[in-house]
């Protein structure tokens, strides 16, 4: 591994660094020499409230907008400072550590080209890489794997992609072969799904509602009493999710992906999806549901770093979601479907430690359609920057097969170390 080998960075290339004079004759080779990059994509389904993960504490309108729900640098549970303007949700100490070590980058006010507010369509655009929903049955990561430039050392083409789940997330589906791995036990039904079913029953079928309520009550008692909720092989067990189950599944799914990607002969690109981010009611950015989910995600991030081992240095993990949420809190202490949000990039291969944002502001007139954080960065620019610099996917492929008709969206430079 090229510890002693000085690899010129894309950033230096773009800046025209003189150090590149010699390498410039064989730029592709030079960049590729000895590298063995890994890219793991994590899709957070349900639309993450980016403002509650990375809060613009330096924006004077921030506390006006969110009131006592706004993350702040003071108070009982202070947010973790990032760069003087943004602060990180306190549920994510691992991400904060990586950020300070230059191994995490936040992109804020970012969005896909999708401007409606349907989860399914939003996820379709996010994962397919097309500008419109329903355009393709394959994802940008898979098509990128097909388009990777062959080189002597960065030989990614013959390897399958990797996906967690009984069915690969769309982002990883496509012409390139995909190795799928599913945890032996699928995640139990989440509290969120249970509550939605219960809500439906309450509006339509009191008898079923009562039966389900009893069931939930039993589950809560079992949890409080420390009764194992792990079902036996044959015995049906009380199986209503709980954050511990979520934490376990997040860690298991992400940790397994890292183990596969770390292997010398293993896959080099992978994807998994984590559900549960649709926080319409009692969002709980710090102490409640969102805080818990972020804590689970933070634990999974630490697991990826550990399981990657030596390969962490050559790894980028990109964490994305279909869209953001309303800038204001709604009538149920939650947030509704919005537009711009954050993307989180982590890994030893990054030139991190910064928040990349063309901040749109939070004035009434700044908000998109008067309600959402306005998108100022196209997520495709971030992904194209990563795929180009990290995996050596050619610009032409990025603008055509990987993100069709995205020629006008320039790859974001300088993301990698």
């Amino acid at each position, binding site marked *: 591994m090229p510890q002693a080998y000085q690899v010129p960075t894309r950033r230096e290339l773009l800046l025209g660094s003189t150090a590149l004079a010699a390498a410039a004759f064989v730029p592709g080779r030079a960049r590729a020499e000895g590298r063995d990059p890994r890219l793991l994509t994590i899709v957070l389904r349900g639309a993450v409230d980016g403002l509650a993960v990375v809060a613009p504490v330096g924006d004077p309108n921030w506390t006006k907008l969110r009131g006592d729900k706004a993350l702040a640098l003071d108070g009982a549970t202070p947010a973790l400072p990032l760069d003087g303007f943004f602060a990180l949700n306190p549920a994510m100490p691992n991400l904060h550590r990586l950020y300070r070590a230059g191994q995490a980058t936040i992109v804020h006010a970012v969005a896909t080209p999708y401007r409606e507010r349907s989860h399914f369509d939003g996820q379709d655009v996010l994962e397919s890489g097309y500008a419109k929903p329903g355009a393709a049955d394959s994802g940008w990561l898979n098509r990128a794997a097909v388009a990777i430039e062959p080189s002597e050392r960065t030989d990614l083409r013959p390897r399958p992609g990797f996906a967690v789940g009984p069915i690969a997330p769309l982002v990883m589906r496509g012409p390139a072969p995909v190795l799928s791995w599913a945890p032996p036990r699928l995640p139990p039904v989440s509290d969120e799904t249970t509550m*939605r079913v219960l809500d439906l029953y309450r509006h339509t079928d009191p008898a079923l509602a009562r039966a389900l309520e009893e069931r939930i009550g039993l589950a809560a008692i079992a949890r409080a009493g420390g009764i194992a909720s792990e079902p036996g092989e044959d015995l049906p067990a009380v199986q209503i999710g709980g954050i511990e189950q979520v934490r376990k599944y997040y860690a298991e799914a992400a940790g397994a992906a890292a183990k596969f990607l770390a292997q010398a002969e293993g896959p080099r690109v992978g994807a998994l999806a984590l559900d549960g981010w649709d926080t319409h009611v009692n969002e709980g950015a710090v102490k409640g549901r969102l805080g818990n989910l972020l804590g689970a995600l933070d634990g999974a991030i630490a697991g990826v770093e550990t399981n990657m081992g030596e390969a962490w240095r050559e790894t980028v993990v990109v964490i994305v979601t279909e869209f953001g949420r309303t800038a204001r809190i709604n009538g149920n202490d939650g947030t509704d479907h919005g537009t711009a949000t954050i993307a989180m990039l982590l890994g030893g291969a990054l030139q991190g430690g910064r928040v990349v944002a063309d901040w749109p502001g939070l004035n009434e007139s700044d908000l998109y359609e008067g309600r959402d954080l306005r998108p100022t960065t196209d997520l495709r620019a971030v992904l194209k920057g990563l795929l180009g610099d990290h995996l050596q996917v050619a610009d032409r492929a990025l603008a055509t097969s990987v993100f069709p008709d995205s020629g006008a969206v320039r790859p974001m430079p300088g993301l990698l170390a």
Partner: protein
Amino acid sequence: MALDPKEAALALHRFGFGPRSGSIAAIAADPRGALLAELERPNAGQILNPDLPTSAAANRAVFEYNAERAANDKRERLRREAAPQVAVLNAGGDTAMEAKPDAPPPTAAQPEAVPLPRQLFRNEARARFDAAINAEIGLVERLVWFWSNHFCVNADATVMAGGYEREAIRPHVLGRFKDMLLAAEGHPAMLVYLNNEQSIGPDSVAGINRDRGLNENLAREILELHTLGVRTVYGQVDVTSFAKILTGWTILPPLTNPDHGGEFVFLRRAHEPGPQTVIGNAYADSGVEQGRAVLADLAQHPATAKHVATKLARHFMADDPPETLVDGLTQRFLDTDGDLKEVAAALISAPEAWAPEQTKIKRPGEWIVAMLRATGISGDIVRIIRGQALLGEPLWRPPAPKGFSDDNAAWLDGLGQRLDLANTFAQRVGPGLDPETVADAALGPLASAETRRAMAGAETKPQALTLLLMAPEFQRR
């Protein structure tokens, strides 16, 4: 005729196994006519699969399989007992106990072959579920499931449960009740399940010589569960007499009958001699015909008609079905000498059967089939079997001879398990499906606005599918 997609969807859920893609449109012109037409299909209700062995052949095969296994185990044990002295002699002191005999290393990670009885069970289950999943509507299969539960046996008692359903239930599902009754009570699976194979007339040759006696289990359950119904017109005297009549109805043991073991046999040596009286009717001792005569009379008894009609109406319509519906079905049963096709047609044609409220909760197996049909997936049989068991309705393993309950209350408790199962299923198949398309196919106009809204707001496709599968209008029929 005007199209009635709502009644079509109701027909599919209430009388069939739920819609598949396109089912609602296919029968919307005449839902009731489509149901009646299903009763007229050639071979309706039959499974024509030459690979499935007869129940007797399955019985013999399992007998041989078990015998071979027992012999292998014994051979292995004898070999081990002969060998280990070496280790004990060679090792001294405290470590002697740890020394291992020179046995071959265990073969690691070699997937064990599925034992024959389980494989036979899976094959039968697959055939049963395929018939339900692939049926156009599924009325006849629903009737098969109903009657199989009415005349239930238990797979823990016999390896013949699957074959029994094909041999005793299916051939008569649109035939006469009397013929199904005769086929069921005379089937070796039933004789074993309800212990009649060892019931011996006290005054028969075998009874006197072997000092064994009567077992009235089968006779009682025939009267109480299969025909007249509990607390009707019979008493303990009738049970005892009927049990004596049924002595000698037994099964040929495979041990001594390599060609016909597992088949029914009437063993005169064990049959109680002499005439008997059952609910006022005298039956001369005509051997096996004595029992058949009783069954034939029971089949046309008004109490039987009422019992069967009530159960049918309860199964398809409501825990407390309308009296007019029960009366209508009872009358039809009596008028047609127990013609089950005519009774089914009467059910379909009754106005009470078309109440728009979906009140009955689908039984677990029905609901699983409905999920598979809605999503166009045939399903892995091991998962299906496990899922049905998890929901409290293990296939061919009823908790008692009464069969699985047909009351809503019995299945409400399992709602949490249904949610777990729906969630797991949706996570496996949901990412590749469009929930709205599935809802259109599976519920069509039955889908409530609330369900549509909940699905549209779901955060993932699998969550939307879970909501659909759990929706009241998909749980109930």
